[in-house]
């Protein structure tokens, strides 16, 4: 996200350029200044999109059609429920989020524990490192067939895909964080004769927190990416399912529904990323 603090030059404007009439106050408010650039640029993008679609005479909807075609029920009623999988997009997103929450939580618990074991024990690290390096590069969807075979159920399979996708960055960053603990921290601990438990509690955990959150943040992005893809292939409900269902329906407004869903997916992904970053900054221990 591009953010900039608005320069304080209200005084300078009136003094430095007397010939210019003062701008309306709402235009010079800090908020207006901050959102000015994004509003203009997004507006221009939408305009170009609309103009290209109208001029080319293609069936692909411009932004205006996207909104008008999906307004009822997808935008106006995000939480309608007609039974089965015919649900509002709010519900679909919540279904996806629930799967992510379960898979991601498991990945966090297992990933941090495994990362600590790897970071603290050289034998375990050397032993498992080659395996981790190979497995972490496997694309999320490659796990889906084996996951379906293993769990025989779409929901569990999707959760497993989330887990196996999200766990690697957490493991790796936690392990690196532990290895990066400055030698002097450890020396002080030794001079104070900390027990292994106190060492982990007082030194290892606080100095590793920033690394863990780097891993958690990468992982939430991957998890959200994986759930949408997994639901498109095999799921009952969820935002990925919604996109694929709209595509298969092939109705007049299908494209608009897909575009709207993509916007929602993007916004939710951004919110998830910000949320983890926010928690991380609140817990920031200032280590390293």
């Amino acid at each position, binding site marked *: 996200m591009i953010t900039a603090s608005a320069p304080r030059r209200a005084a300078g404007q009136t003094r430095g350029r007397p010939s210019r009439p003062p701008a309306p106050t709402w235009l010079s408010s800090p908020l207006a200044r901050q959102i000015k650039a994004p509003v203009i640029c997004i507006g221009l993008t939408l305009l170009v999109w609309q103009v290209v679609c109208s001029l080319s005479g293609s069936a692909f909807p411009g932004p205006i059609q996207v909104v008008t075609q999906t307004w009822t029920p997808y935008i106006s009623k995000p939480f309608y429920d007609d039974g089965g999988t015919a649900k509002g997009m709010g519900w679909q997103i919540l279904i996806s989020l629930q799967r992510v929450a379960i898979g991601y939580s498991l990945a966090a618990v297992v990933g941090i524990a495994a990362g600590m074991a790897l970071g603290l024990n050289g034998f375990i690290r050397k032993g498992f490192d080659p395996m981790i390096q190979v497995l972490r590069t496997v694309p999320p969807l490659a796990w889906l067939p084996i996951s379906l075979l293993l769990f025989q159920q779409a929901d569990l399979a999707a959760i497993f895909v989330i887990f196996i996708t999200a766990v690697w960055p957490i493991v790796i960053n936690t392990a690196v964080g532990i290895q990066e603990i400055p030698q*002097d921290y450890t020396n002080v601990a030794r001079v*104070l004769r900390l027990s292994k438990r106190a060492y982990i509690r007082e030194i290892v955990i606080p100095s590793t927190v920033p690394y863990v959150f780097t891993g958690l943040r990468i992982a939430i992005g991957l998890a959200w990416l994986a759930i949408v893809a997994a639901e498109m292939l095999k799921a009952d409900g969820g935002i990925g399912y919604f996109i694929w269902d709209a595509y298969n329906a092939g109705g007049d407004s299908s494209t608009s529904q897909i575009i709207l869903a993509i916007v929602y997916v993007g916004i939710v992904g951004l919110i998830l990323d910000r949320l983890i970053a926010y928690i991380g900054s609140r817990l920031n221990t*200032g280590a390293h």
Partner: protein
Amino acid sequence: MHLSVSGVSKTFGSGSKAKHVLEDINLELDSGEFVALVGSSGSGKSTVMRLVAGLELPSSGTITVDGQPVKGPGSDRGMVFQKYSLYPWLSAAENVAFGMQLQGRPKREVNERTAYFLEVVGLSDAGRRLPRELSGGMQQRVAIARALAADPKVLLLDEPFGALDLQIRETMQEFLYQLWERTGLTALLITHDVEEALLLAQRVHIMAPRPGRIVRTVEGKLDRRDLSFLRLSAPFLELREELANYLRVLDSTMG
């Protein structure tokens, strides 16, 4: 308190890769003394410190504190490192209290001692601040307070001001000297800075590299009533120049 290092050698590795770092190191330290080890990098002076601290064990020879052989780190030897040794997630006061809490002292005593030692190092007002909010010199003072708070018999200082700017270093040297005078602590200082060693220590051991060994010992009988004056006085400058030359010659012949 009596610290004795006698006939200590240290070799890292073995066989053809063996690196002989220290050869027959002997030094003594009594209560209230301030002793310095000076040498260029590679002279093994930091290894001597790590051995005394118990972070490493000697290959041969013995190190004893009050007759008890050193077998590992212990709270009778407080240590101040060059940098990065305060825990950044703890405030200055929490850093000072850290070791005492683990020693199992009562909470009230910990609080009192923390306040006392922060005052000793002149940082009573900075207790709540995090290390990153403190200057380098202040951070090192917190580190000294932390080491002192554990009530060590001897304070081991490993290039404590090496990472500081020259001006701050001079202020810190004067601070440390006054602290030593005031509290009667016992200190072993490692430094590459001849001036720093001569200024603070009553006895300076000079180390030569490859293998690290003590080649000369200087008993600095100087008038230390005013350190900034002493820094510029003729006998001090003469001695400093002589030793600096001596170290240079050692380095060029040994290197």
